[in-house]
């Protein structure tokens, strides 16, 4: 059952020039919840994520995370507090081997060993750290590719690596920005299975375009349209909501889910 409020936005707005990308959004997330945010392209979902995670500040409004006002905090501070995200276009370090991508996340999450000298001068590949990395890679199913240069991975494997990066940081809240975008059907099945196994262990927020995929996964669906949060509730109810059907599929209700 969802617990205390962990992440909250209050009247958050952001505009780029004339365009208001996010318009006075109030959003609440409780600990242990899995929530989805849907909306057509350009609805402001990713911009909202970017504000929540500190990529850029809102023009107005407040972000609360674990009871603290984090509106002015940098992205890295929020990550250290446990707010971790992935990106819509997979963002991993192509020039490094898969394992090296993960090691810094593992080091970051290892709060017991905060030794600056060891960080700067110690070896980056201790057997203990490598073991944690391998366990995480195992979890997402790419352990066999640990020595491969990341640029040689397929797009789907890069997505899995990015999720592994996020998991290695031991997040309190994990925000996934269109984790299924650009993947093939078998890859989608893999990621869905992974997300299903995650939802019991941590708080999840998922932006997704393919709403049919989300219905079984999340317990609450919010709909964004033209920068506003227009409605939210139980996924099945949301999908039947005539307003949602109109913004998603236009006046014509017959076309199917994309």
């Amino acid at each position, binding site marked *: 059952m969802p617990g205390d409020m962990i992440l909250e936005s209050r009247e958050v707005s952001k505009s780029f020039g004339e365009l208001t990308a996010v318009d006075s959004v109030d959003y609440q997330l409780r600990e242990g919840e899995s929530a989805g945010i849907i909306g057509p392209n350009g609805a402001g979902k990713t911009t909202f994520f970017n504000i929540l995670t500190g990529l850029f500040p809102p023009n107005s409004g407040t972000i609360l995370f674990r009871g603290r006002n984090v509106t002015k905090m940098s*992205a890295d*501070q929020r*990550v*250290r507090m446990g707010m971790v995200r992935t990106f819509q276009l997979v963002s*991993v370090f192509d*020039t490094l081997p898969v394992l090296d991508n993960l090691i*810094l*996340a593992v080091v970051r999450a290892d709060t017991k060993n905060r030794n600056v000298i060891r960080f700067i001068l110690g070896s980056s590949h201790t057997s203990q750290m490598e073991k944690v990395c391998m366990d995480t890679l195992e979890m997402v199913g790419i352990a066999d590719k640990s020595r491969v240069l990341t640029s040689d991975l397929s797009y789907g494997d890069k997505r899995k690596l990015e999720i592994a990066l996020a998991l290695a940081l031991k997040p309190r809240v994990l925000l996934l920005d269109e984790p299924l975008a650009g993947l093939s059907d078998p890859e989608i099945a893999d990621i869905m299975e992974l997300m299903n196994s995650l939802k019991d262990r941590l708080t999840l927020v998922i932006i997704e375009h393919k709403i049919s995929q989300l219905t079984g996964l999340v317990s609450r669906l919010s709909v964004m349209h033209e920068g506003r949060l227009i409605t939210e509730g139980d996924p099945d109810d949301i999908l039947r909501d005539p307003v949602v059907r109109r913004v998603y599929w236009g006046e014509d209700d017959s076309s199917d889910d994309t």
Partner: protein
Amino acid sequence: MKRSTIRTLEKFNLPIVAAGFLLLAPVLTVQRTTDFIIFCIFVLAYDLLYGYMGRLSFGHMLYLGVGAYAAALCAEHISANPFIAILTALLSGAAVGLLLGPIIVRTTGACFALINLAFNQVGFFLALIALAEWTGGEDGMAAFFDTVWMLNFDNRYVVFGFSLFCLLLVVFLMRRLTGSPFGILLRMIKENETRAQFLGYNTYKYKLLAFVISTTVAAFAGALTILNYTYVTPSFIDTTRNVEVIFASLIGGAGSVFGALLGGMSYMAISNYLPNYIQRWEMFLGIALLLLVFRFQTGIWGFVVARVSGTDAEKDQ
């Protein structure tokens, strides 16, 4: 050559570097080899920023000059003990890095390159005119050091041996730095700094640290230059000389300790010997640079590593 050969090279890097320079000394003369060694230290300092962190500086001569002038001023006014002079140079290099770093490391790309250049120009002006009373202006200043622990730095064999020891120290330090989580973080900053922040790292802090290490090691090279030449003039920090270290980093292969060493050696070899045969040798440097940019972007060391991995991959198939 096999991949295992490269691993062996990397494992025994210190004895190999030492042996290399000891063998080179009789061929090139001791003083010239000392020049090579000191330049290699400077290239290593530069490559931490350029090769690993991906920040190209057009003004690194300044930090070398800070070390050289600090050591000379120390010898004149404070103590002629060469070790105290070197320590003064290191502290000055770190202080300048800490002073300018907070401004400089916030920038990237062309801005980073040019802001370093601007500070280098300021330093040049200070040494040449504003502080001429201290630095001797255009004539520069001489520095003489005491004999400490039987190390007489007037003896070029002593300078050679000491410089080589310092180079090994810097190679060791750089390999530790770049083989650590910090080293991986620098490479991440080079590729995508924002993404590194989303791994929970305050990248500004680590960029500043890398910058200060780089200016300190550059100042170290400056202090050794003074030991080797016993004088310093503003030409030591002439901005046009930055091209030397940029070229050396590129030719050897940026982002690798061996690459930096090979680059330093290659550049020194070209600039020392090509003029004997061709008067306007700089043109050939330009042509070599074009070749590098278009054909061998990873430099000599990168080329070697790629060839070796390539042949191994063929065998695997």
